[in-house]
């Protein structure tokens, strides 16, 4: 790729980027949120048809108009956002768009058998005839990976494919990637997990502000080197929190704000009892699909528990809806930005929506809304600082901060964060950690739900581990490391 530029309206996403992908290599791609990684890959995969610059494959210039063009040229991509069809069977999702036919008609039994085999290659044992929607998110991500990996594409682009996977699954995936490389095909691998990138890649390219900073052989560099170039200045202390032993600073004497007893929701989880205490961050860790996300939603009134009780400061509650939970003093930030933000609205309306009832009874007070929003924009270092800017014009990391800002105007009693740093770069993660700790120090009960051990470890004062929808372990007031956490799960 040669001199690629791309802008969205006024936003320059890519600026004069050159990028070379060799045959038979795994090429790691890292960079802060909004650095332009996904944008470049989407150009290669034909999703963005309009851009400046030239692209060559095997020395021949190409310009894809659609994903179809790119697929035909042997380019397959797993997108950052899960893109599967939940209503179809697993087998069809494996062959999405290329269902095998026999005499012009779909060969259902052949497809099921072939899907079973391909999934087995990735180490998955599911019934290919089951419907995709019945699988956990992690499994769905694996099925999507299987689709692209075994599609026969020569160039495979994986945009944060491991965000929903547990460590053993990631490990298995890497084995498969190495196998693919051995067959002479090329892979681009985007991730915010620098350890992963460094361990699996042959070469690593670092992006910053829509520009390619450097490309280097993975063997020659280490994590600190990468972070330095991603962010611009050294942030060495960041990574410490993820390794080594961490002393949990539990406050078992602090008053209980939220308490759950024997909570259960359908097949998602059962018999969950927990207490969230004032001034303490409670981490809930478990592999993807172990019920922790549903638990978080239940605490915010989005799902209704089939059994069990909830109490806020000792008073029993049965939330009718999220508004009810909000009034009871619970705040919630879901794992996906898409389900938290209003893209077509200005930043200030995004910030004020969850506290509108406190700002105004009947009549809106836009000036007050803007003032509150401005304060948070400053506090959280959100760029651009103009609260009238449309949310869609912000980068992902900044959007994520807006999602958090919603709840900071009037401090809630309980703050529930689901995957608060998913897809964030190290710098932004650090910001979030600081904000959340500051909130805890103000006496909030914070609950952090995540399938990323790093997230939980960097934030939590006490950790509950969930497995198959049940609490299996609790770490409090002790020293813990990533290994022990993974062991427990």
């Amino acid at each position, binding site marked *: 790729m040669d001199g690629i530029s791309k802008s969205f309206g006024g936003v320059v996403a890519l600026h004069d980027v050159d990028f070379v992908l060799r045959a038979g290599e795994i090429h790691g791609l890292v960079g802060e949120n909004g650095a332009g990684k996904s944008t470049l890959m989407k150009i290669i995969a034909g999703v963005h048809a309009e851009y400046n610059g030239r692209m060559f494959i095997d020395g021949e210039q190409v310009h894809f108009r659609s994903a179809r063009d790119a697929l035909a040229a042997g380019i397959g991509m797993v997108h950052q956002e899960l893109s599967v069809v939940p209503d179809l069977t697993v087998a069809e999702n494996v062959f999405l768009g290329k269902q095998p036919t026999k005499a012009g008609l779909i060969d259902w039994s052949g497809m099921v058998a072939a899907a079973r085999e391909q999934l087995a290659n990735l180490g998955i044992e599911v019934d290919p005839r089951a419907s995709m929607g019945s699988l956990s998110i992690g499994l769905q991500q694996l099925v999507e990976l299987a689709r692209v990996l075994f599609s026969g594409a020569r160039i495979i682009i994986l945009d944060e494919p491991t965000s929903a996977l547990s460590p053993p699954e990631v490990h298995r995936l890497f084995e498969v990637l190495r196998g693919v490389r051995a067959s002479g095909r090329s892979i681009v691998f985007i991730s915010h997990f620098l350890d992963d990138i460094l361990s699996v890649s042959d070469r690593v390219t670092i992006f910053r502000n829509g520009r390619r900073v450097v490309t280097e052989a993975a063997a020659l560099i280490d994590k600190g080197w990468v972070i330095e170039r991603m962010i611009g200045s050294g942030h060495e202390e960041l990574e410490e929190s993820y390794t080594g032993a961490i002393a949990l600073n539990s406050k078992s004497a602090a008053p209980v704000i939220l308490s759950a007893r024997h909570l259960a929701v359908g097949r998602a989880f059962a018999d969950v009892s927990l207490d969230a205490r004032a001034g303490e961050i409670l981490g809930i860790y478990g592999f993807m699909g172990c019920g922790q996300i549903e638990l978080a939603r239940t605490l915010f009134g*989005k799902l209704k528990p089939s059994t069990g009780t909830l109490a806020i400061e000792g008073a029993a509650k049965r939330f009718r809806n*999220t*508004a009810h*939970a909000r009034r009871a003093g619970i705040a919630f930030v879901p794992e996906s930005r898409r389900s938290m933000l209003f893209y077509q609205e200005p930043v200030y309306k995004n910030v004020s929506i969850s506290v509108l009832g406190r700002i105004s009874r009947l009549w809106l007070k836009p000036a007050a809304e803007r003032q509150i929003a401005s304060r948070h924009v400053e506090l959280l270092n959100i760029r651009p*600082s103009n609260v*009238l800017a449309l949310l869609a014009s912000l*980068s992902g990391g900044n959007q994520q901060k807006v999602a958090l800002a919603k709840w900071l105007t009037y401090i809630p009693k309980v703050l529930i964060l689901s995957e608060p740093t998913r897809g964030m770069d190290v710098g932004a993660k*650090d*910001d979030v950690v600081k904000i959340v700790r500051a909130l805890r120090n103000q006496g909030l009960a914070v609950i952090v739900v995540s399938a990323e051990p790093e997230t939980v470890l960097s934030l939590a004062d006490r950790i509950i581990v969930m497995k198959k929808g049940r609490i299996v372990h609790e770490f409090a007031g002790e020293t813990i490391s990533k290994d022990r956490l993974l062991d427990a799960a």
Partner: protein
Amino acid sequence: MTIPVQEAVKGSPSRAGAFLRNRMRNIAPFATLIILLAFFSIASPSFLSVDNGVNVLTQISVTGVIAVGLTFVILCAEIDLSVAAIANATGIAVAYFTMQESYVNIPNLPLPGYAAIGLALLICAFLGLVNAFGTTLIGIPSFIMTLAMMQIGAGICALLVRGQIAYAVPDLVTMMGSGTIAGFPWIIIVLGVFLLAGHIVLTYTRFGRYVYMVGGNREAAEYSGVNVKMVLGAVMVISAVCSGVAGMIGVAHFGSAQQNEFDGYLLDAIAAVVVGGTSLFGGRGGIGNTIIGLCILGVLNNGLDHVQIDSFLKILIRGIILLVALIINVYVQNLRDRQRI
């Protein structure tokens, strides 16, 4: 951590973009309206007159009151297909509760005027509540729920009026529907009041903001602690009550209450909201757009009566003009969206 310069630059174009965007949404329908006005003024000498202006306004009044409620629903990315049926049922109900002349052969239930109006309003609010119940608590898509309600409304009409025609409605309703004040029709004033109230609620109240937010991203609204079901339920009830009022003044305006009288209003009201530029996907548009849409529809229907065309061709021409207005409308919006990306 500081965010690079590139980000800071973003603010201004997107602000100007937002401004232009809102303008564009309005410019295309507005241009359509101007073109229609110009065309009919040239094509017919009788079109451009104060009298005919009042005619157009009178003719869009009933549609307009329905469209106000429908704007709320469509802004929430829902639809209400029962508006015309509810209007009809409410109009018939208010006549049912009014003393009819002896030659009207309906076993009805005469009540004092205000009681009749109150009961009729209760009925439409109740039908709206059923819609709300079905869409929010049961989870039936509004498209289908209100389709069923449309049939139920028609059933209520048939049952109450039993194939007869009722003429009398309470005095207040008669005045609102067909009275004038200083020569100016009350019905236009009613329309004005509804449009204004709708605009104020949508733009200046907390509930109005919730409507836009629920339409813009329902999930996000829910995760922000907005009672989405309540907002959705409320817009269904608002829509039904607007329709009910429209039905009552409509019956007074037309001077009679009978089955299927308002069937044509369904498409007209939807067309008015959408041609005006309010997005069917929710979250964008408003009463201002609805006003323009109403004027486009009103001028089109009225203007075609002023020019000499083959009657059989008229329906086709109206359909084609509507389609062209839509195409221009959507096309201009898309063009703008594309420029933004």
